[in-house]
């Protein structure tokens, strides 16, 4: 009984450790990537940007306009994060009859030296009769 408990305990400890080992960045060329990490010394390890907008025009004949922007600073020259993550999400709703809903989200950030992940999702709905819904999402990374 005691042995079985020990085995279960060992498994419980081993599984998260194994999961941690499997996570992270997949090394394609370990030598060059280690060089990249070494060359990026003094720069941020990661940069994460999350921009979320919710815009709705509820009344009859109403208008709601939303404009959001996130611009990641370039920091010191030639210095960029090792890993960059950018998330853009927008919800734009024209709920009232003949309503007008407009949403524009623009995000500009730095590309990571090792990896860049961008994620963009939008929901744009003109529910009301004769309503207009316009949504513009832009998720960009630059060097």
């Amino acid at each position: 009984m005691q042995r079985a408990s020990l085995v279960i305990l060992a498994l419980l400890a081993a599984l998260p450790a194994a999961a941690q080992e499997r996570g992270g960045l997949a090394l394609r060329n370990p030598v060059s990537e280690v060089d990249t990490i070494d060359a990026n010394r003094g720069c941020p390890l990661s940069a994460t940007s999350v921009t979320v907008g919710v815009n709705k025009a509820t009344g009859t004949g109403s208008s709601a306009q939303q404009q959001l922007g996130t611009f990641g600073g370039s920091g010191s020259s030639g210095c960029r994060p090792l890993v960059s993550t950018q998330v853009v999400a927008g919800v734009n709703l024209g709920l009232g009859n003949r309503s007008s809903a407009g949403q524009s989200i623009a995000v500009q950030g730095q590309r990571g030296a090792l990896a860049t992940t961008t994620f963009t999702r939008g929901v744009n709905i003109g529910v009301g009769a004769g309503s207009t819904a316009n949504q513009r999402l832009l998720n960009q990374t630059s060097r």
Partner: protein
Amino acid sequence: MSRCSRTATFAALSILWCGVSASAETLRCQSVNGNLNCAGSGGVSCQTVDGKKVCVSGHGDVVQSFGNGKSFSDDADNDEDGLDGAPSHPVIHQRLEQHGPGGHTLLLERDGTKLHIQTDSLSIDRN
């Protein structure tokens, strides 16, 4: 008010309430790469995600305009100067319009050249 008329009024109000609550708008939706775009009756919804535009009309017309979407790569070796979201080759603008459920008019526009097809005529317009 007699009990019978009160019951009739209550029944009429219930039917009216049920009728109102049961009525629903038609919503036309389109999902492109996980992004949802819907339009109610008589409405128009346009969504542009990273340069790729999709429009939905509540009338049932198809109004679509395609830009040049971008592709992302996590490979740092593929780094290029400038904006990664900007298209690396010329943008092709293409638009397709179809009016009426029977397809009375079809307009196809690409890079300023229009192909206009109607039920009784065919015309090519160059801008």
